[in-house]
Structure formats: structure tokens, C-alpha cells
């Protein structure tokens, strides 16, 4: 599904990822944990193609194709999905318009016919229900005035609608209370079908109680420093990142 080799990146001349390797097979769930500033969010941005994030070395292949050569929208159309840590608000563009446009662009790529307004509405309502958002959210401006938790659920709703083959969840648990966390986790779990792959980026082991990873990787200083199974996350919860032996004082990761 995804193969990252020796990935080096920089943002505004600052090196963030310094030789990252990661291979993900269809159906696998990989958790990426690590201290602030380790490059976790950068990885999500690099994979989705955000401008300003430069790849200085290494390669990424997605379903056998060179991912780094694709436009942002092309990556999405080919099945890559990033659930944002901080989804943007777009007043004036309704959630419904946005998601219909998005779904139809992706359906077109898959060789499917565009959905009519009625067909779309039916699907959107189901997805809305699944993440427990009231239906009037479809009519509101994209993320406009949504609480932090509602924004996260909206991301998961989009994921459910778009049926991507690789989902990257960038701290989809941050700022959520336990109920919202369960809603998000259930939404994700409902999409695990043995073929779809996930990268779950998180600070805390808490989310992984609900979304059981096959592998856990610890990212520090731009590299995977340790990989293991789900038990690694539990060890980390107990012992913290101290074993990394470096200073991980608060740094904001954009």
C-alpha cells in the first residue's frame, strides 16, 4: 500500500524528517507516536502534499506509484485521506456542497458515475448518523463554528463517505472527551475491512485502547527509533519518552 524509504524533509530550511522508513500493507493499522516536534504531523502533510513541505531525499510509493510526484488532489483521488488535526473553517461553502464535490471528484477517478443530489444526501445522512452529528451540520458552512470535537467527527464523516484506501489520522483524538473519542474510534473501526490501511498519529495510548494497532512506531527527531506491536504503546504510557535520552520539552508541531 505505502512504502516510505529514507524520507528527508524540510520546512522553511529546517530539517524535520531525517531518514524515515515505513512500509504498510493493505489492511494494516500502524500507530505513530512520539514527542512534540518529532515530525508526526509533518509526515501527514508530506504524504498529502501540502505546499511548503519539501522532500530533500528519499521516496514514497503509494500502490506502486510515485506519490511525491502527484498533485494534492490526485493523491486524494487515488485513495489517500488525511484527517486533519486542525480542520479549517470555510464560511459560505456548505458541508454538503463540499462533500458532494469531493465525493464526485473521487468517484470520477474510480470510474463511477457522479451521485445525484438525492443519492448523495442519503449517503451523507448515514455518515452523519454514524459519527453522531446532527443532520443540520450538512447545511452549515464547512466546520464553521463547529467545536473541536465536532470538527474531528466531521473529518471522520468525510473519511466514511470517501472510502479511501489509506487513512492518515493526525491526532484525531486530541481535545476529545471520552464519549467523542469513542465516536471517532467507532467510526474508524467501522471502516476496517481488511483492505483499508491506517496510519494513526497520536500522542497518547488512550486512542489505541479503542483502535487496536497492528504496529506501533515511535518517531523521534525525524526517524522511527523503535517499532513493535500494541504493547509498545502501553510501555510508553508507563515510562514516557525518557528512554529516548534527549530533551523533549514542549515544542509546537504545526
Amino acid at each position, binding site marked *: 500500500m505505502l512504502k516510505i524509504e529514507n524520507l528527508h524533509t524540510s520546512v522553511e530550511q529546517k530539517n524535520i524528517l531525517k531518514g524515515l522508513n515505513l512500509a504498510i500493507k493493505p489492511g494494516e493499522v500502524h500507530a505513530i507516536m512520539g514527542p512534540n516536534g518529532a515530525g508526526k504531523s509533518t509526515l501527514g502533510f508530506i504524504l498529502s502534499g501540502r505546499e511548503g513541505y519539501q522532500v530533500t531525499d528519499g521516496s514514497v510509493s503509494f500502490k506502486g506509484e510515485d506519490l511525491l510526484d502527484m498533485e*494534492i488532489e490526485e493523491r486524494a483521488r487515488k485513495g489517500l485521506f488525511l484527517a486533519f488535526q486542525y480542520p479549517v473553517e470555510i464560511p459560505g461553502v456548505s458541508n454538503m456542497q463540499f462533500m458532494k464535490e*469531493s465525493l464526485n471528484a473521487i468517484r470520477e477517478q474510480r470510474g463511477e458515475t457522479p451521485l445525484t443530489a438525492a443519492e448523495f444526501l442519503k449517503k451523507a445522512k448515514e455518515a452523519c448518523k454514524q459519527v453522531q452529528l446532527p443532520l443540520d451540520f450538512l447545511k452549515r458552512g464547512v466546520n464553521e463554528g463547529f467545536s473541536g470535537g465536532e470538527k474531528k467527527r466531521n473529518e471522520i464523516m468525510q473519511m466514511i463517505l470517501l472510502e479511501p484506501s489509506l487513512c492518515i489520522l493526525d491526532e484525531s483524538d486530541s481535545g476529545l472527551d471520552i464519549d467523542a473519542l469513542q465516536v471517532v474510534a467507532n467510526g474508524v473501526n467501522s471502516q476496517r475491512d481488511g483492505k483499508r490501511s491506517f496510519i494513526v498519529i497520536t500522542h497518547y495510548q488512550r486512542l489505541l485502547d479503542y483502535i487496536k494497532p497492528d504496529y506501533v512506531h515511535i518517531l523521534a527527531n525525524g526517524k522511527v527509533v523503535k517499532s513493535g506491536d500494541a504493547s509498545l504503546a502501553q510501555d510508553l504510557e508507563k515510562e514516557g519518552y525518557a528512554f529516548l535520552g534527549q530533551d523533549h520539552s514542549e515544542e509546537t508541531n504545526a
Partner: protein
Amino acid sequence: MSQWLQQVIDRGQAIDDWLSPLRAQALDALSNTKWPDRRVENWKYTSLEPLVNLQLSGYAATEKATIEKIDDLNSLDLVFVNGKLQSDIRALPLPKGLHISSLLNASVKDQNAATGLFTKIKPQRHLFGLINDALAEDGLIIDIDADSQIEQPIRIISINTDGQESHHRILLRLGSHARATVIEQGQGEKASFSTLFAEYDIGEQAYLEHYRLAMHTHQAIHIGGCHFNLQQRAELNTTMIAYGSDLSRMDIDIIHNGEYAKAKLNAVYLLGESEHFDLHSTIEHKVANGTSEENARGIVGDKVKAVFNGRIHIHRDAQKTVAKLNNRNLLLSRRGQINTKPELEIYADDVQCAHGATIAEIDEGTLYYLRSRGISRSQALVMLNFGFIQELVNEMPNQHLAQWLKPRLKSRFMEMEVK
């Protein structure tokens, strides 16, 4: 005296018709008018160079313009090509209470009534209003009887073709307690120069729903105006949609002459590469208890020069006036320019007023978000542009017109894209 203005005066003097006494006043005013340069406040950001330098072939193409029907609108269409009325008014089935005549064959009664109104609604300060007074021979006088509810929208289409200059004018009188919808639709893209000034006298407790679609682009220079006189408890709801060309300008006046009148003006300007557009609006609250609300939104493309000047003037006696004015702009490029100036001039002490202007840019983070969901950059820009003006389009009372407009706005946005 500028040479350009002198030739206008010479041409105006040569016209002899029932409007000549009015024309003489305009010519007199024009001969005392200084040709505006950048030192003249009203023209500070709009240069008339493109007009002065315009070379018109004068090629008289008597092409029959094809008029696009608007689905479900069921409008009464009146068509001007290069300022000349093409429709045969006598052949039109007019609803009861609606009377239309052309300036060219107005009855003596109409002439007298029109002569009285033509000097009362449109202020004399508009240079091109005066030029239109001096040169317009054709146009419409529309009369709507008191208490008449005219359901069928009156659609006045003005088309400008290659190489032509044209001037025409519209006068509409809406009787007390009457209701009507008027759509003024202008279009042209080839080298041409046109003025069109429309004046509306809205009677007591009458309601006018009005649209001005000024869709001149490229080399079609258009300078026009809409001027509304509101009598007691009259109500106006007007929407202007404008594109830009080498030189486009619109002057709007809304004059509260009767108490408890209400006016709503929504204006949208959508400007593509290197276009120029200038919107000047003035809302005069002359009497007490009036309400006005103006929302102008503009999307400004690459190398565009745009001007917005919105003035609210509250006279000494206009107590209890409620007036709001807001202008928002979205810049698509760092090379686009908007000069915006909301102005409040208040001489009454018991009023509620608000005014504001903002200028924003397309946010790259928002574009990234939309693209990360499979939406192309072009499509994302169209969505964001739509999002910016959607509210005003949705507020158009006639949704058949809004539906017709939407795909056209979409292609406009695609033309405006900064690559």
C-alpha cells in the same frame, strides 16, 4: 474644455426632439464641467484614458441579436441593440396597469410627465449622466398604475456590438401601492462605448424589485447608473451584479424622499484579469424614519483595479434613520487592487448607522484542505468565490433569475482564475 467632451456637446446640440429643452440644460452643465482627472475625488481611481483612446469603427452591423431566455422567468423582454429599441412595444401583450412607450414616440402626456421627472431623480453631479442626457434619444418610459401588481418581470436587455457607441435611458414610475420587478441586463465584449441611466420613481407604499446585471467585459466600456426616488413607505430591493471591462463604472443613488421608506441594495462585482470597475453609491436619507441596508461584495482578480465608494448621507431632519453599509472584498492576487471607501455623513442626532469595509485574500490553507479531498484547485477556487458572494445571490428575491445566474457566475469565476 477637453476635445472629447467638446465633440459630445457638438453632437448633443445637433439633436432636435422633445427632449431638447432638457438636453440644453445638460449641455450647459457640461460646458461648465472640467474633464475629470485624478484630482477630482469622484474619479480619483478611475482614469478615463481608455475611453478617450477608444477607436470605434462605427461599423453598423444590423445584426439581429439572439436573446437568451431565462428558464421559468416568463419575463416581458425589451431589447436594445446599440441603444436602439428593437422590440415592437405595440405587439407586446402588456398586463393590465402596465404602460410602456419608447422615447422616440412618446405621447405628449408621457413627454410632459417625463420632462418633469427627468430632472428630479438622477442628481446632476454625474458627468456621464449629463452625457447621457445630452446624447440619449431612445429609451423607455414605463408607467405602472397605482395598485397594480405586475407579476411578470420586465426585462430590459441592452446589447452592445463591435465598434458602436450608444446612449439610452429608462424612466419608470411606479404608482402608489403598486408592485413590479425590473431586470436590467447589459452585455457586450467587443470595442464599444455605452451609457445607460435608469431612473425610478417609487410611489407611496409601492414595492420595486430591481436587478442590474452589468455584464460588459473586455473592450466594452460601459458607464451607467440607477437612481431611485422613494416616496412614503416605498420599498426597494435591488441587486447589482457587475463584471469589469477596460473601463466600467456604475453610479447608484437611492433617495429617501418620503418617511418610512425601506431600501436594500446588494451589489456584487466580479473582476477578471486587468479589468477596471468602479462602483459609487449614495444613499440620501432626506427625511425621518427611513431604513437602508447596503451590502457590496467584490472579488478582485489579477491586475484588476477596482473602486468602491459607498456614501450614506443623513440629512438634518432624517431622525430615526437606520442605515447600514458594508463592503467586503476578496483579492485573488497580490497584483489586484481595490480602493474602498465607505462614507457616513450624518447631520441628525438620533440615528443608527454602521459602516465597514474589509479586504481579504484567498487562504492557501483552505485551498489545501479542499484539494486534499480530491477537489481540483480551479474547482476549489470556484467554490471559495461562490462562498464569498453566495449569501447575496441567495438573497435575490427571484430565484429563477438566481438559478440562471449561477452557472454563469461559475464560468465567470473560471475566467477570473489566477494561474
